[in-house]
């Protein structure tokens, strides 16, 4: 074979590789954003007199808007908002609890199996029997005081539905007791056809996902939404797939709907004019039934529920299934994403364990399934632990790889590469309701406000304010702080919400906290305030924190003041009196798990740990302080530090943060930046390339300067720290593979397996991060080689021996590296492996032992061999084909 022919074969191979590259770049990214759906419907309530004439009592035009309805994933939260509905009365704290059904005129949201169309067979249509509720009480009513409760007066119901006992379990289980005068059962029909009749306390059977008692775990998604006096309201709705609720059984193949029922009240036909004569109540009973059905409401719109007070039955949410209410429904079809392929339960492959940063949780969550389903890749697990602890373990040589965001102080004492694998950050998550009781989405925060929350400088409640002289001049909580009000005008002031005096943060050590506290430390206003200068409104730092040295890896709890002696001795809070401890620390109450903070920000759960329900001074086992728990919609205020990637995944809201310099007197004039791609990209542009330590750092002075005014100040890089000497060959190969993936395919944005979820800025040339991606690829080689070499930040400084030119073997055609958008030169390996002639000259098996997959001879070899064959053939044919045409 001549040299000319050889080069032609190589050209052919190059063409093929380029085609593969283009194809993989052009692969469509799963569309994450789904368009919102808006629907409108006129709803009415009517009453029918004894003579059969009807009067319209109420008529409204309800508009419904749903934020996302397609490509949904399990436990995804969608936002449902509405206007034009009847205002709700008898408000409850938890709109997802069964008690919510006792509100008058709630806006009921349900997830139901089926679609709302007459063009499908009846079995596939929605009906109350296919709608999920968590408790029996939401689908069973009985009455022993009258035979004609409101649901029997329903003008829209059929005669059968208006009989004394409807859908009663047959035979009636003994457990269900004797029948009441009137009973209405609404059985639940499961996806597999099983019918759960329900009844009192579920006596005739309940679905396995039902709760017997209010308990632990995730709340129900059935929502008794609250409509404000202006007719508007909104709620988050958590959609479930068959994975969360098999009885409901929604999936990409089983269609389901979101059903909104604006409860208007029963269309009253108490006299039974629409019933056959034989079934009508007598005159006296009819008049009573009519009066009952048209009774006045018990609660005024907006009024809170009173313990023990029963609502007007005819307008309560408990009758959501009554035909009068059901006919007013607005339904929206929900489309579910195809469940991604998942890792096999049983696997012989021993995964690489990477310890460390919780900032990587969402990324590794999407990468892992790719690694365990793609034969070209070896599985890994991400073991979350404190960043500092992961570095210490790595330093000691006891783990093989760690995710962390900083070098250890003083640097690693052994050769370790810090390869950038993600650019993400921290976020200040919140749930705050505005003056209308609706969720506020424009929150702005600055370093001084964050410092005020973290330093326990707001008293939190009157107890502390009145007894702690050093803090008595400070606002009780952030909502009363003029600085907060300047940034967030119009939010309601709260006088007794301890949660508004705290920023929930981690108690375990984390680089995320280090980044947050670096941000506080660099802001001149925040720093001056921490050092004792009052803010322009006179608020001062808690003296225990004055002069606090920052940054830190975990926020210290420095205030050791107990509640006043009179409070302790008074035993009004027996849990506290039993064991008094620093009171403000109970308000701050940091937690060991990021997942707890995320959950609290998702469900507006206050972590303030000062409640003592059922505390009995004489029974020590009851004397346990408890957290305040879920806040009442309309009155919510919680703040917490979360990873940026959790914001999108769990539909949290996150504050915009002051970027660049601020003004102490006019904090609202500063620039505020969100943690979106633009903000992260601007933040990443300010990364400092630390050539001496071979890493990139966040340049906090630059962020705090005018250069940082477009940069999201929470931007944080995450590195995979991997030793380049001393690793077992197997671990080194797996770690190198992970690095190569993280620098290429793993930076492609999307919510499918192997892609980079929202909340991370892709490390690509397009985002001006090509140098980081290139470094990670060079790091992969150094890790694979295990020669103790740590690449320089500047590739020109790297030595150029043969070892650097080694092709990444073990990567089959399905995982051609270098398909990074904005390809990094070093990442195009095709040529050496692709040219059949050179193959003989390269010690292939040797490479594979170093870099290959599961075993010495895995599937990598045949794949490469096959690729070489195809490319060789293609090259030969390509070379030949044009000549033939020319002839």
């Amino acid at each position, binding site marked *: *074979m001549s040299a000319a*022919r050889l080069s032609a*074969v190589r050209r052919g191979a190059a063409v093929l590789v380029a085609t593969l590259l283009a194809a993989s770049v052009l692969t469509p990214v799963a569309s994450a954003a789904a368009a919102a759906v808006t629907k409108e419907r006129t709803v009415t309530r009517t009453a029918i007199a004894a003579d059969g004439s009807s009067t319209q009592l109420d008529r409204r035009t309800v508009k419904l808007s749903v934020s996302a309805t397609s490509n949904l994933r*399990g436990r995804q939260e969608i936002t449902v908002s509405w206007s034009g509905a009847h205002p709700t009365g008898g408000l409850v704290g938890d709109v997802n609890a069964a008690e919510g059904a006792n509100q008058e005129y709630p806006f009921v949201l349900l997830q139901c199996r089926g679609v709302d169309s007459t063009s499908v067979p009846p079995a596939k249509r929605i009906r109350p029997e296919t709608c999920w509720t968590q408790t029996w009480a939401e689908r069973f009513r009985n009455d022993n005081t009258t035979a004609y409760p409101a649901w029997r007066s329903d003008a829209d119901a059929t005669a059968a539905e208006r009989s004394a006992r409807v859908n009663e379990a047959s035979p009636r289980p003994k457990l269900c007791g004797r029948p009441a005068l009137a009973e209405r059962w609404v059985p639940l029909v499961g996806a597999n056809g099983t019918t759960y009749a329900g009844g009192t306390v579920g006596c005739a059977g309940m679905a*396995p996902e039902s709760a017997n008692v209010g308990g*632990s775990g995730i709340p129900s998604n059935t929502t008794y939404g609250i409509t404000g006096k202006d007719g508007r309201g909104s709620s988050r709705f958590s959609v479930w797939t068959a*994975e*969360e*609720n*098999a009885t409901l059984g929604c999936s990409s193949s089983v269609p389901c709907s979101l059903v909104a029922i604006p409860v208007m009240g029963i269309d009253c036909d108490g006299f039974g004019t629409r019933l056959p004569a034989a079934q009508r109540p007598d005159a006296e009973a009819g008049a009573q039934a009519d009066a009952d059905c048209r009774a006045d409401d018990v609660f005024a719109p907006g009024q809170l529920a009173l313990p023990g007070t029963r609502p007007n039955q005819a307008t309560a949410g408990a009758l959501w299934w009554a035909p009068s209410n059901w006919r007013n429904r607005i339904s929206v079809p929900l489309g579910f994403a195809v469940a991604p392929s*998942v*890792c096999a*339960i049983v*696997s012989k492959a021993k995964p690489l364990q990477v310890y460390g940063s919780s900032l990587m949780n969402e990324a590794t*969550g999407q990468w892992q399934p790719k690694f365990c389903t793609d*034969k070209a890749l070896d599985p890994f697990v991400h*073991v979350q632990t*404190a960043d500092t*602890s992961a*570095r*210490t373990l790595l*330093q000691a040589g006891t*783990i093989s790889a760690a995710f962390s965001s900083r070098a250890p*102080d*003083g640097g690693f004492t052994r050769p370790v590469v810090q390869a950038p694998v993600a650019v993400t950050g921290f976020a200040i998550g919140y749930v705050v309701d505005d003056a209308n009781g609706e969720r506020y989405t424009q929150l702005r925060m600055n370093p001084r406000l964050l410092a005020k929350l973290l330093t326990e400088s707001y008293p939190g409640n009157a107890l502390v304010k009145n007894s702690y002289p050093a803090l008595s001049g400070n606002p009780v909580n952030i909502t009363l702080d003029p600085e907060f009000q300047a940034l967030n005008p119009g939010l309601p002031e709260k006088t007794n919400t301890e949660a508004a005096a705290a920023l929930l943060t981690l*108690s375990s*050590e984390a680089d995320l906290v280090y980044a947050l506290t670096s941000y506080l430390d660099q802001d001149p206003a925040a720093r001056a305030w921490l050092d004792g200068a009052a803010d322009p409104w006179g608020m001062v730092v808690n003296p225990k924190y004055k002069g606090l040295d920052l940054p*830190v890896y*975990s*926020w*210290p*709890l420095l*205030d*050791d003041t107990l509640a006043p002696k009179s409070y302790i001795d008074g035993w009004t809070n027996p*849990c506290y009196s*039993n*064991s*008094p*401890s620093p009171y403000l*620390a109970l308000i701050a*109450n940091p*937690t060991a798990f990021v*997942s707890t903070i995320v959950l609290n920000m998702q469900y507006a759960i206050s972590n303030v740990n000062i409640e003592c329900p059922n505390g009995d001074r004489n029974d020590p086992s009851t004397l*346990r*302080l408890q957290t305040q728990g879920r806040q009442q919609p309309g009155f919510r205020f919680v703040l917490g530090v979360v990873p940026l990637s959790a914001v999108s995944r769990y539909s949290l809201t996150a504050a915009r943060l002051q970027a660049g310099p601020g003004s102490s007197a006019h904090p609202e004039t500063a620039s505020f930046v969100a943690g979106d791609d633009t903000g992260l990209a601007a933040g990443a542009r300010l990364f400092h390339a630390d050539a001496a330590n071979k890493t990139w750092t966040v340049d906090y002075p630059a962020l705090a300067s005018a250069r940082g005014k477009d940069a999201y100040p929470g931007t944080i890089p995450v590195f995979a720290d991997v030793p380049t000497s*001393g690793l*077992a060959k197997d671990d080194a190969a797996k770690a190198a593979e992970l690095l190569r993936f993280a620098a290429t395919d793993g930076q492609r944005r999307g919510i499918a397996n192997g892609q980079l979820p929202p909340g991370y800025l892709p490390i690509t040339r397009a985002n001006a991060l090509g140098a980081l991606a290139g470094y990670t690829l060079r790091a992969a080689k150094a890790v694979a080689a295990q020669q103790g070499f740590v690449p320089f930040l500047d590739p020109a400084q790297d030595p150029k021996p043969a070892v650097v030119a080694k092709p990444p073997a073990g990567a089959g055609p*399905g995982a051609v590296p270098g398909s990074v958008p904005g390809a990094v030169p070093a990442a195009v390996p095709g040529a050496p492996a692709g040219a*059949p002639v050179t193959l*003989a000259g390269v010690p292939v098996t040797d490479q594979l032992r170093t870099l290959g997959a599961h*075993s010495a001879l895995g*599937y990598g070899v*045949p794949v490469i*061999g*096959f690729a070489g*064959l195809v490319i060789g*053939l293609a*090259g*030969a*044919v390509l070379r030949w084909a044009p000549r033939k045409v020319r002839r």
Partner: protein
Amino acid sequence: MKKIALALVIASVALIAPAAQGASSHALIQGSGSSWAANAINQWVADVANQGLRVVFTANGAAQGRKDYANRSNDFAVSDIPFRGKDPTTGQADTPLGRSFAYLPIAAGGTAFPYHVEVGGKLVRNVRLSGETIAKIFTSKITNWNDPQITKDNNGHALPSIPIIPVVHSEGAGVTNQFTTYLAKQFPAIWASCNGGLAKETEYFPLNCGRSSGNQKAQAGSDGVMNFIKSAGANGSIGMEEYSYPLLANFPAAKVLNKAGYYTLPTQYNVAVALTKAIINNDPSSPTYLTQKLDYVYTNADRRTYPLSSYVYAIIPTAADDSRMTTAKRQTIADFLYYSICQGQAEIGPVGYSSLPVNLVQAGFQQIAKLKTADAGVDLTKRDVRTCHNPTFIPGKPNQNYLAKIAPQPPACDKLGAGPCAAGAGAFNANPGTAKPGATNPGTGPAAPGATPTAGSPGTGKAPTTGDPTLGDGTVDGSDATAAGNVVATTLPADAGSGPPAALTVLVIALLALALLVPAGVGRWLVGRRGGTP
């Protein structure tokens, strides 16, 4: 030639086609209980998410977890102890209310004693205590860190006068039960004098020995206990918590004296060694099958023993008519626990737990099998010890624990009457086999004097510092710190067979040969057709 190429294509496609996924379906399961085990369980919950398993775990304390189980408001519970009828001390009812159940161990760990003692504004990180000293501290008989008995524990090195603040759990906690069981067995007189005359265990610690005031503090949950100990006002405090909590918070835990006269930490090795003396109920017909008796763990004479080592258990419903169960939920419980007791064991060593030995894993599989007995639809194919990668396994010796075999000996400075060692010595939790050959052994790994990596001590609010104060001269004597025996890391037979099948090897060789020959052949053929060189 063409035909051969086609055949190769087919063969290759067949080789790289992904294996079919298991068809069994899953459903969300909810568990609650032990915060002692929560750091391990939370990790497993995160791991199995990518297998399509949805698990929600609420760490509300073992007592509450068992109550939730009895009330049928969870699908499984996690508890350090079985249902006992009633708490032996408080008389609190503790029954499953008729719900069927089986226990299976899911992890081992050590009850550690994190403390907060500052000298000159810096955390002391190398305090050692004997069991008796600890017993007297938590019964308020020793109330100051300068107590002669503490000085003796630290080989004559005295701490300054700082009042001791013992911190206990205010909720019914498994860790309280573990600790009070130890006190009741080892120091019955001291404990009974504090516990109303009863030398019995309890989940509810009698705060200040039942007196209305005293130096002790009760805090809610593991977060509450750790938050209190870390807080600035808590100088002098000492609590009890699973070892992973002080590790996560980078806070020191006291070394505890064992029967052999060494002060040790609850590393995965020392816990594994200690638990070789645990007595497990081996009667499958007993309702408390697999539950533990730790009397001989406390007194294990091996120098590497950490005396307060124990197992933690999952409680699962076994009845065919359990009202919360479906096939999909049982499958999820089975697969979640399979992961937990198998692969899940491999990763928890460095974060502060220890792995289950193979005999308990095997027994665990028998318990999981009860889910299939209850419901034939549950698929347990291939879910067995051969796919476990559990670091404790030694083939053919199911009763031995590899971790215990290779556990490093404590350094000489940890001996009663010697030392004390510098902070960090004997503290590390290496995974076996990950350290490079010739590296320092995990027991003393990073503890070279002066090079101890200590990141931020939160109590002082200071960024990473070096040179935390230590008691004594902080010497590390590694001469005694060699691993016992020369056990070679091995795998179970099935794993050993995971290499390339013969057919694959042959195919690979054939492919390589063809890869070299075919292009040349094709090229020659094409050239031949065109007649002559270009």
